[in-house]
């Protein structure tokens, strides 16, 4: 106990005195939470639309003004023919062409209209498909408004959409929990790993290894500061989320802390294990980056797991962030309780025990 205290005292003095780490712990979460939610959006904005209006009716003009009014679209100067518009598409001057055929409005009432044509640049598949979707919705609402004014009913009114848990489909709300997780991985995983490897590079670990200190005590003294730092970081991140984005967890904040504690345990143990197995900082960083990428892309942080191929879905079972993101999004957006999420907590708990045992086991006082 006394040894642990004396080692902790050393770790805290070193962290406090390190000009880089002490600033990083404060600045990193603030910067990430202030900047990243704005840029990690897959919401589609500013899609350039070129209209080829051959109808030139009140309906087609209404469509044009509705598109112009939409926050999703930017209207380019209209084109007189489809070919002219196609040339603009090829020159990347526009993203989507909307071609309204002649006599569309008149034929619509006859109910045998020629179809409206939408052509999209789908190099960015998300932008292409979402842009077209939005465009269809805008056009449909133009038609339905026009019909309403004329006292006609439309089939569109049979469909209404309600988005539960994130009513405005705000992408930030989806990304913020994921960003918090990336923060914890970087702070707890990377810093705890680097912290040990630095001792190896400086040779100070040799002086520890030749002393009678218990290796569990030594590893515990390495881990505890990062547990505290991790909780501090997640608290800053939640505070900023609430102040800047007005997003507070719908469910209990206690579950977020419980999950964070488990997750911090998982990643500090993971970082230390990597550090024990590497000889220098470059090696540690390389391995950690490999895992960071895997976690970010494969754990459902950025893309939904259910859209992945089956084999990848099975692979996510062994990735701890997958369980944490379920808890974070569930508690933050849906207000899920323990009964909905218990298996996620259980999985994180198992990982935490496994990685910390591994961390203690891979640290050897003998070479």
């Amino acid at each position: 106990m006394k040894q642990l205290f004396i080692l902790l005292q050393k770790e805290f003095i070193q962290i406090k005195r390190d000009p880089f780490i002490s600033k990083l712990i404060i600045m990193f979460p603030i910067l990430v939470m202030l900047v990243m939610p704005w840029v990690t959006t897959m919401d589609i904005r500013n899609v350039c639309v070129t209209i080829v209006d051959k109808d030139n009716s009140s309906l087609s003009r209404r469509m044009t003004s509705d598109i112009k009014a939409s926050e999703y679209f930017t209207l380019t100067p209209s084109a007189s023919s489809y070919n002219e518009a196609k040339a603009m598409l090829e020159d990347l001057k526009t993203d989507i062409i909307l071609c309204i055929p002649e006599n569309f409005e008149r034929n619509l009432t006859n109910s045998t209209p020629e179809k409206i044509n939408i052509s999209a640049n789908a190099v960015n598949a998300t932008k292409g498909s979402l842009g077209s979707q939005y465009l269809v919705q805008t056009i449909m609402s133009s038609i339905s408004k026009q019909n309403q004014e004329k006292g006609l009913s439309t089939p569109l009114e049979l469909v209404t959409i309600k988005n539960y848990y994130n009513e405005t489909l705000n992408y930030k709300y989806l990304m913020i929990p994921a960003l918090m997780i990336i923060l914890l991985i970087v702070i707890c995983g990377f810093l705890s790993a680097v912290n040990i490897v630095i001792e190896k590079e400086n040779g100070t670990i040799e002086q520890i290894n030749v002393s009678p200190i218990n290796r569990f005590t030594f590893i515990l003294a390495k881990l505890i500061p990062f547990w505290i730092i991790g909780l501090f970081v997640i608290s800053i991140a939640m505070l900023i989320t609430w102040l800047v984005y007005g997003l507070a967890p719908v469910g209990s904040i206690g579950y977020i802390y419980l999950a964070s504690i488990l997750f911090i345990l998982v990643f500090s143990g993971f970082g230390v294990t990597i550090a024990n197995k590497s000889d220098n900082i470059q090696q540690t960083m390389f391995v950690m980056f490999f895992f960071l990428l895997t976690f970010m892309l494969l754990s459902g942080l950025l893309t939904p797991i259910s859209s992945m191929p089956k084999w990848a879905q099975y692979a996510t079972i062994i990735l701890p962030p997958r369980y944490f993101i379920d808890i974070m999004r569930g508690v933050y957006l849906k207000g899920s309780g323990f009964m909905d999420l218990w298996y996620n907590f259980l999985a994180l708990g198992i990982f935490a025990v496994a990685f910390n045992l591994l961390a203690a086991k891979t640290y050897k006082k003998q070479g």
Partner: protein
Amino acid sequence: MKDIVISVKEISKVFGDFTAVDKISFEVRKGEIFGFLGANGAGKTTAMRMLCGLSFPTHGSGTVAGFDIRKQSEEIKRNIGYMSQKFSLYNNLTVWENIRLFAGIYGLSKQETKQRAENIFKQLDFEKERNTLVASLPLGWKQKLSFSIATIHKPEIVFLDEPTGGVDPITRRQFWEMIYQASNEGTTIFVTTHYMDEAEYCSRVSIMVDGQIRALDTPANLKKLYNAESMDEVFRHLAREAKRGE
């Protein structure tokens, strides 16, 4: 016959197909200053690490401070001090914080820690440097501080791996005065060095060549045996046979 504090029998260390230490045997008596010489790559550090419990021997057995080097390495660590050739105090801690840390690791009480720290400050004339970061001390001072901290828990044996490498002659002298003082107080000193004048200060000297101990005796006897005027001559005579490069 004085007490034997280190005794090893035919210990070897093999890394893959490279035999770093090849069946060495020797004994060290209490209070001796035991010089452990050898050219670079002769296997000195590897041998020393096995004695300190930092590495297990591939073959052979031995005891240090009465404990088995295979089975009781943690007990050995409680009874030895170690100073490696690479400076290994914490550079971003102050002199006092380093002393407090290592005193704490060896389980010294607050009272003892304070008292030993005062002794160190007095002995090294370090009172002013108490709150200086170790990183900003000159190398010679760092080495003296390392030695004081390696012996802070009054170990039976202290292992010094090239403690005076890169240190100026005056500081080297002061360093050896510290070694003598520790030896007079009953601490056994096990030291490796490349300076042959330092070898002359040792009670007994062993010379390692290619992983084996080629000679072991007092400096006077060795000089007589090889008909040499100085340890330098003895060393060059033996090291010339080395087949291993650096």
